[in-house]
């Protein structure tokens, strides 16, 4: 048992953090939001740091790293509330690397690792809410290949991505497919989301697709779990920075002749924020360290983590705004953007109540980090 980061992990964090601080300041971010919430150049810079290939094997041109490195990177990106969906690349490279046939891997992973191809997960449907096994998109065999029809929503950077990992029902069973955006019958649109990033709708009409795996639910659950661990880590970065911003403000802002950091009721609120931050950080570690565990153990861990993170995010975000007072609800001042990011992350891959249900349904007699 050891929670120290290795030197390499430390160097990775420093590199990403440096890019965030120097290369992705609030003004650049604001400009990206104004331009639609996604900047291919910024994504390219992340790829240039090697981050798009984090989970890609070295033979396929990646770094061949694991969940802890993923966590380190996502936390650093979270501190800068970076809009570009690197978490999607962690998910889709993870899925292709783990479940796709060799030729599909060879065709895509190197391009994904280099940042040339952005591939995102397109699983959300209208009736599914947070359920992964609800899917109306269909896949039918068409010659040697497959054809997909259906609509997916809230697909990250839908109109900018190069390809999509798409769950669809093939002969009554969920399977996973790779769909290129330039394929026939593909429609994609784009819109901003509440946190300033970009998403869109993906429509498929007899669209040619390549099979990743027929064991689609297993793979999808795994992919979403990669996403949950990434979201947890990102959230820790967002919260850590949110607390710093708030602390700085409280030591500057004066009311009744003194810094508001001197009011005991507000001080205790900050203590509670620190509590939520450290519990969240602990559970983010837990999620990432369980990401390679057997599926049942992994799923249970993600649910527990998301319950803690969800509670922490809501508390830290709301209180940060409250402690800022009026300035906290303006667009101009940065803290509201952190709050909105936290709000969106809570609803990403299942909100707190959803995962509480998962924890509740999975409860055993014995519980703990190792049980």
């Amino acid at each position, binding site marked *: 048992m050891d929670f120290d980061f290795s030197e390499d992990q430390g160097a990775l964090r420093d590199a990403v953090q440096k890019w965030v601080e120097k290369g992705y300041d609030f003004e650049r971010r604001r400009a990206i939001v104004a331009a639609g919430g996604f900047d291919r150049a910024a994504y390219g810079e992340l790829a240039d740091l090697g981050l798009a290939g984090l989970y890609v094997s070295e033979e396929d041109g990646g770094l061949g790293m694991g969940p802890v490195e993923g966590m380190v990177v996502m936390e650093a990106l979270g501190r800068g509330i970076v809009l570009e969906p690197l978490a999607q690349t962690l998910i889709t490279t993870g899925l292709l690397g783990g479940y796709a046939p060799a030729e599909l891997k060879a065709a895509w992973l190197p391009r994904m690792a280099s940042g040339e191809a952005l591939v995102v997960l397109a699983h959300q449907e209208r009736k599914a809410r947070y359920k992964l096994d609800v899917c109306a998109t269909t896949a039918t065999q068409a010659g040697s290949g497959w054809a997909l029809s259906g609509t997916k929503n809230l697909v990250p950077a839908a109109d900018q991505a190069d390809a999509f990992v798409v769950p669809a029902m093939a002969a009554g069973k969920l399977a996973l497919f790779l769909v290129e955006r330039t394929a026939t019958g593909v429609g994609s*649109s784009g*819109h901003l989301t509440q946190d300033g990033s970009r998403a*869109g709708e993906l429509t498929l009409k007899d669209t040619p697709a390549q099979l990743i795996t027929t064991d689609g639910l297993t793979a999808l659950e795994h992919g979403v779990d990669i996403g949950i661990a990434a979201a947890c880590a990102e959230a820790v970065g967002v919260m850590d920075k949110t607390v710093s911003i708030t602390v700085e403000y409280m030591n500057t802002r004066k009311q009744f002749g003194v810094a508001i950091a001197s009011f005991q009721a507000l001080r205790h609120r900050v203590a509670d924020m620190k509590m939520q931050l450290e519990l969240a950080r602990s559970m983010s570690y837990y999620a990432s360290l369980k990401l390679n565990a057997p599926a049942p153990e992994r799923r249970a861990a993600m649910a527990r983590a998301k319950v803690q993170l969800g509670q922490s995010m809501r508390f830290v975000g709301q209180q940060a705004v409250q402690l800022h007072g009026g300035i906290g609800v303006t667009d101009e001042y940065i803290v509201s953007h952190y709050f909105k990011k936290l709000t969106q992350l809570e609803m990403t891959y299942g909100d707190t109540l959803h995962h509480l249900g998962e924890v509740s349904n999975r409860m055993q007699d014995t519980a703990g980090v190792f049980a």
Partner: protein
Amino acid sequence: MDLAFTPEEQAFREEIRGWVKANLPAETAHKVHNALRLTRDDLQGWAKILGKKGWLGWGWPKEFGGPGWNAVQKHLFEEECALAGAPRVVPFGPVMVAPVIMAFGNKEQQERFLPGIASGEVWWSQGYSEPGSGSDLASVKCRAERQGDKYIVNGQKTWTTLGQYGEWIFCLVRTSTEGKPQTGISFLLIDMKSPGVSVRPIKLLDGECEVNEVWFDNVEVPAENLIGEENKGWTYAKHLLSHERTNIADVNRAKRELERLKRIARTEGVWDDVRFRDQIALLEVDVVALEMLVLRVLSAEKSGKNSLDIAGLLKIKGSEIQQRYSELMMLAAGPYSLPFIEEAMEAGWQGNFPGGEAANAPLASTYFNMRKTTIYGGSNEVQRNIVAQTVLG
């Protein structure tokens, strides 16, 4: 002790209900029921309809042209308006500055300003907060210097709600720096079309411009626009704040929004989920408890026998409830509250909202916006200070 309204009160309610039904524009009600964007015309249109009926100053005594209703009647009026989907009346004129003018203004001021307020013709704004004085209102710095028969005003106000539409603004200004901060404040009415007044909208976290900064650069204000005595403004401001009681809890709106929450929960398929439903049930209890608290205050006001000094509690609980229903609405839609499509918040938008429910478009924005409720009107921390003071001394 009796929970039921008297037959007279019931009849009064029926009268209001009938009138509102006949006079509230359907388009406006539709926007309110769906949290769509309200225009200046939506707001002022309804104000003028009320004004024509003599009800825009629904809290005013008869001597000033109001209906002279008692506390319960006022509440019934507010409730019927809220449940029917009327927009909240912008309070700065009829609810805030008018009572101050009535209590502390001179006859000339009353005759000059009250008619425009009562009719809804003149849009008033509030100039209280400044960048350095939020919770600590007594520290206002915006200066008004007396020069002959005018004041020269210099400084800045902020968080001026809907100030972009404002024609007149009532301000707390500093006329003296001697003694305690409270003693050097005056209450001044300023024509916003005066040279030197500039208004800059502040974009809020939901993308809307609901509040403004207002700058005064050597603005000349006739001394006759001073309310009451110089340096006594703090007293008048406090009168104004204490005047607001049950209104601040906004329980009638909460009841309407609770209904909307239930509609959304049904549409989004979480109505039958015990976990989510219980959250609504808890909120329902909160709303009923708040309503009972409001009714107790109203009853005490009506009878005059007991006074319940629990305005702070109404503000705290009311604002928490507003935040909670907006939070639950957003959580009910879950991922489908996440698209941020500004046009979709306009009535009549015909686009394709991702997931198909255009009604979800404003949910997250409303949730974000509602964070203000525990900050403004005296932050809930300040309210807790006040409540603690009454209990602990």
